[in-house]
């Protein structure tokens, strides 16, 4: 697999080639990604991503926080799917603790996680289409995204940095009428996906810009650690929600969209079909939402209800202890992976038995997916780089952490 091994630093352009710098401030890099391109006319000879512009040392910061205090940090890693990050982190800590989560909390988590996936895919679709030149789609996508952000605001008080999932359950009972709003959105949404598809799927310009562009084979994608829709578009049938179910995903029926071409169009089709699957999961979750508590019965770990704190001494004491000195987590280590909108998001947490995590490491799906960019683009045209970046759906906050 020598052709996938990244070449050493680009040297001075030789007779025919020149070095072109793209980014870090470039509208199509979805953040601050810098690409160094060696081009021969319009053709890309070599491409090298340069990352780290958004590095904030979140992994180091986590080591200085109590377990509960890490939850808001996880929001800020991948700012397009904060709830997926919350979920992955709390699942990992719950696995460390051996905590059982009540069904209603699991259902709520699945429902909101899928809404997050839709939210993230909408931003991806809008910006990806805009990069290639289809402006309208962006406005359409952000119209529906606004609806989802309002739902997040209703349930957690925040549009983006939700921190709604907590160790042991979820933060609050959803407000009255929330389920009806979600049901209403789920009813309206499929026709909106039709609208996006009417604008793009059969559009000859879109098809010409995406079909056969930035291809990657299944073998190369696996070797490079590519995951998520980018991997499935190359024909690998693997989705963690189905193949390693977590948070009660095994109770839901859904298909895993696959394509075999491995080009930009295939990745587009996979994600658009995922939109439809996700909304079907949301519907199932709303309709089958079990009754019961939203937090685990573990007073030393889970923050008590506000009401109880006003009437019960024990609740007040537990609250004080959890907030002021955290809770000890038994020694050990876990790796928890979830299917984020971009691929395998993994949290590796090591506990040394104290109230602060000894080490928190995030496996960023985008970091591995970005490694596939040179393999996709080399030999292609310069204009196709923009399509390729959009198609792997990168979020630099997650890559740099």
């Amino acid at each position, binding site marked *: 697999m020598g052709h996938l091994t990244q070449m050493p630093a680009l040297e001075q352009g030789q007779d025919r080639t020149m070095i072109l710098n793209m980014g870090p401030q470039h509208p199509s890099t979805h953040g601050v990604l810098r690409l160094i391109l060696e081009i021969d006319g319009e053709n890309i000879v070599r491409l090298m991503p340069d990352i780290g512009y958004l590095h904030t040392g979140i992994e180091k910061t986590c080591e200085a926080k109590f377990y509960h205090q890490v939850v808001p940090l996880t929001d800020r890693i991948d700012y397009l799917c904060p709830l997926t990050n919350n979920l992955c982190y709390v699942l990992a800590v719950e696995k460390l603790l051996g905590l059982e989560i009540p069904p209603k909390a699991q259902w709520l988590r699945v429902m909101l996680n899928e809404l997050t996936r839709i939210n993230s895919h909408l931003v991806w679709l809008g910006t990806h289409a805009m990069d290639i030149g289809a402006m309208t789609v962006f406005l359409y996508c952000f119209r529906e995204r606004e609806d989802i952000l309002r739902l997040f605001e209703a349930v957690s008080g925040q549009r983006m940095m939700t921190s709604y999932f907590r160790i042991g359950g979820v933060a609050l009972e959803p407000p009255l009428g929330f389920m009806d709003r979600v049901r209403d959105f789920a009813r309206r949404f499929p026709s909106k996906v039709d609208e996006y598809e009417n604008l793009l799927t059969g559009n000859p310009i879109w098809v010409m810009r995406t079909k056969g562009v930035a291809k990657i084979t299944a073998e190369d994608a696996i070797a490079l650690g590519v*995951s998520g829709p980018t991997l499935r578009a190359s024909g690998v049938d693997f989705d963690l929600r189905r193949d390693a179910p977590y948070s009660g995903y095994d109770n839901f029926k859904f298909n895993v969209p696959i394509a075999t071409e491995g080009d930009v169009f295939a990745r587009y089709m996979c994600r658009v079909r995922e939109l439809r699957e996700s909304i079907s999961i949301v519907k199932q979750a709303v309709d089958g939402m079990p009754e019961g508590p939203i937090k685990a019965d573990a007073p030393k770990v889970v923050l008590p209800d506000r009401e109880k704190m006003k009437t019960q001494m024990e609740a007040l004491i537990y609250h004080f202890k959890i907030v002021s000195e955290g809770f000890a987590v038994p020694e050990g280590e876990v790796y928890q992976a979830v299917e984020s909108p971009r691929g395998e998001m993994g949290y590796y947490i090591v506990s040394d038995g104290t109230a602060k995590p000894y080490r928190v490491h995030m496996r960023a799906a985008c970091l591995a997916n970005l490694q596939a960019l040179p393999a996709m683009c080399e030999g292609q045209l310069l204009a196709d780089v923009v399509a390729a970046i959009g198609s792997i759906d990168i979020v630099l906050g997650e890559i740099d952490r």
Partner: protein
Amino acid sequence: MALAPAITDLELLKDHPAIAKLLAWNPASVAGAKFDRDEMTVYVERSAIREACSLLRDDSNCMFNFLADVTCVDWAPSEPRFEVIYHLLSISKRERVRLKVRLNGDAPALDSVTSVWPGANYFEREVFDLFGIRFLGHPYLRRILMPEDWEGYPLRKDYPVEGYR
């Protein structure tokens, strides 16, 4: 819920396909194993890591064809100070295994697995950048997240959380 105690006896775990394969290849390559919270960890000798990875990738009983992650933990001040951790996934068997290599604190180095999985490239660069562990045979071992001229390795435990001011 009570946690089941971890199993660390290699004799009890030697039927796991990954451990069986490594023991059959070279008994000295396995330094130990642990089964805890439904996750299997295999401690691999430093010198054997590249070949162990390549064996586990190609063996028909294991088929750990996907390298999910490479990371590191600093156990300073105890020795061996560093643990380099590989999370392997078998896409066809839907199984995971964790490989660990223990390294001493002075000039830590081990073989790169980029020749087995090209995707190890960025992960290993990140570990080099943040922990200062050298991966021998890596095609492009340079800082990836921190600036080129940064001094020190931020994720080491002796590096202050607020940084040096």
